[in-house]
C-alpha cells in the first residue's frame, strides 16, 4: 500500500490543483460557469442526480444500469457471432483474403450514419440500440479473431503435427489456444467501441441511459450534468478495461502479454 501510494499521488495532486484552479477561475469570473461548470456545481449535480434524478425519478444509477445492460447485450451478441465466424474465416486463407476489404469497410462505417437506416429496419425500440452497439463491437472483434487464428506461430503448428495432431484436434488443441491472447485483445477493443457508440444509440426513443442523459442535459443547458455523464462513462470504461486485463491475467496466466506470444 505504502509502495503504491507514490504512484497514485502525482496524478491525484495534479488533478486536485486543476480542480481548485477551475473552481477559483469560475468564482473570480475568468471562466463562465455555463461553459466550465465549477466543481462545486458538478458535485451538487451529482448528489441531485443520485437522489432526485434527471429527469425526476430517473436516478444516475438507473441511467448507468440501463446503459450497461444495453452495452452488454450488444457486446455479448457481437462476440457470440464474431468468434465462430472469425474462426472460420481465419482458418481458410482464401476466405480471409476474399473478405478482408469487406471487413475493413464495414468496420469503418460509422455507427451513427447507420442510425437512420436502423430506425427504419428495427424501429425506435431497444433492438435498435442494441443493434448499433453490437454492430460497432462485431467488426472489431471479427478482425481480431481472424488475425488471431491466422497468425498463429507456424512453429507451434509444426510441433503439434510431429505429435500426430491434425484437423479438428490440431485446431482445438493448438490453433485456438494460441489465438486466445489476440481474441482477448479484440474483446477488450470491442468493448471500448461499444461504449463509444452509446450516445448515438441512445439518441432515439429513450430518456434513460447515460447517452440519453447527456443529450437531455444538453437540451436544458445543464452542462454540469453533461460532464457528470461523460465522467461516469469514462470511469466505467476505465474500470471495465482494467477488469478485463485482470480477467485476462486470470484466464491466460501463461500469456504474460500479447507481445510475448506475437512474433
Amino acid at each position, binding site marked *: 500500500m505504502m509502495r503504491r501510494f507514490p*504512484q497514485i499521488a*502525482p*496524478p491525484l495532486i*495534479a*488533478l486536485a490543483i486543476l480542480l481548485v484552479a477551475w473552481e477559483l477561475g469560475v468564482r473570480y469570473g475568468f471562466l463562465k460557469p*455555463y*461553459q466550465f461548470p465549477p466543481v462545486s456545481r458538478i458535485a451538487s449535480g451529482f448528489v441531485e442526480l443520485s437522489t432526485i434524478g434527471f429527469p425526476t425519478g430517473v436516478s444516475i444509477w438507473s441511467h448507468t444500469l440501463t446503459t450497461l445492460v444495453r452495452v452488454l447485450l450488444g457486446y455479448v451478441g457481437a462476440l457470440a457471432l464474431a468468434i465462430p465466424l472469425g474462426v472460420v474465416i481465419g482458418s481458410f486463407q*482464401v476466405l480471409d*483474403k*476474399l*473478405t*478482408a*476489404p*469487406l471487413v*475493413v*469497410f*464495414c*468496420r*469503418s*462505417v*460509422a*455507427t*451513427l*450514419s*447507420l*442510425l*437512420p*437506416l436502423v*430506425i*427504419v*429496419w428495427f424501429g425506435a425500440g431497444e433492438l435498435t440500440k442494441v443493434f448499433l452497439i453490437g454492430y460497432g463491437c462485431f467488426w472489431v472483434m471479427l478482425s481480431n479473431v481472424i488475425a488471431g487464428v491466422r497468425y498463429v506461430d507456424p512453429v507451434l503448428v509444426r510441433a503439434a503435427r510431429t505429435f500426430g495432431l491434425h484437423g479438428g484436434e490440431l485446431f482445438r488443441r493448438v490453433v485456438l489456444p494460441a489465438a486466445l491472447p489476440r481474441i482477448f485483445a479484440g474483446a477488450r477493443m470491442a468493448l*471500448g467501441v461499444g*461504449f*463509444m*457508440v*452509446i*450516445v*448515438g444509440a441512445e*439518441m432515439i426513443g429513450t430518456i434513460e441511459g447515460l*447517452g440519453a442523459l*447527456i443529450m437531455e*442535459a*444538453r437540451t436544458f443547458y445543464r*452542462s454540469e450534468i*453533461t*460532464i457528470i*455523464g*461523460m*465522467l461516469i*462513462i*469514462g*470511469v*466505467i*470504461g*476505465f474500470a471495465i*478495461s482494467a477488469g478485463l486485463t485482470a480477467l485476462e491475467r486470470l484466464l491466460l496466466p501463461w500469456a504474460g502479454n500479447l*507481445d510475448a506470444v506475437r512474433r
Partner: protein
Amino acid sequence: MSEILKTLRSNDLALGLIGAVAAVGVWEICARTGVVDPTLFPSPSLAISAAAQRLTAETLADNLMWSLFRVFSGFILGALAGAAIGIAAGWYRGFGTIVRPLIELLRPIPPLAWIPLAIIWFGLGEPSKLFIIFLGAFFPVVTAAYQGMRSIDPVLLRAAQTLGLDGLPLLLWVAVPATAPDLATGVRIGWGLSFGVLVAAELIAADRGLGYMIINERNTGGSVGVIIVGILLIGALNLLTDAAIGAAIKRWVGRWHGA
C-alpha cells in the same frame, strides 16, 4: 484456368475485389428478388439511382470535399497533439504519470458526448467540428506513441548515448524515429476513427459534408438511397485513403522496419 486461379490466389487485391463485388452482387440479388424489402434496404443500383435523382454531382462533390477537408484537418491536429503528448508522456516520466490516468479516463467518452461542450467552447463553426474529429484521431495516436516510447529497445538509447547524444537530441534523433513504427500503426487507426466520427462532427450545424448529407436526409425524411450512398462513400473514401497512407508508411517506415 488453373494459371489464372494461381495468380489470383497470390494476389490479395484481386481476391479482395472479387469478395467485395460478390457481396454487392448478393445484396443486389437479395433486393431484386425480394429477400430483403427494397424499400427498407434498397439494392445498390436502386440506391444510386435514387441518390442521383436527389443530388447533383456537384453537390455530392462539394459534400465530399468538405468532409475530406474536415477529416484531414481534424486528423492532422489530433495526430500531432497525440504524437507530441504521447511521446512526452513516454519520455518524461513525471509528465507521464500525470497525464496518463487523465487520458485513460477521457478515452472511453464517446465523441458524440463531447458535442455540447464542443459547441460551448468552440462555437458552431469549423473549430467545433474539427475538435470532434481531433478526438477521434488523438486517442489512438497518443496511446500508440506512448506504447512505442515505452517499448524502445534500450540498447538503441544506450548506443546513442555512447555516441555523445543526450537530452533533447537523444529524444529527437533516436527515440522518435525508434517509435515511428508504432506511431505509424496509431496514425492509421486514428485516420480510420477520424472517418468514424465524421458523422458526429457534422451533426454540429453543418450545411454540407457527407455526414450532414446522411443526417439531413434522415431529418427531412428523404430517401434511404441517399443515406446508403453516403455510407458507401464515406467507407470507400476511408478505404482508399487508408490504402494510400498504408502505402506511404510502407515506403517510408517499411524501408527499414520490414513489416
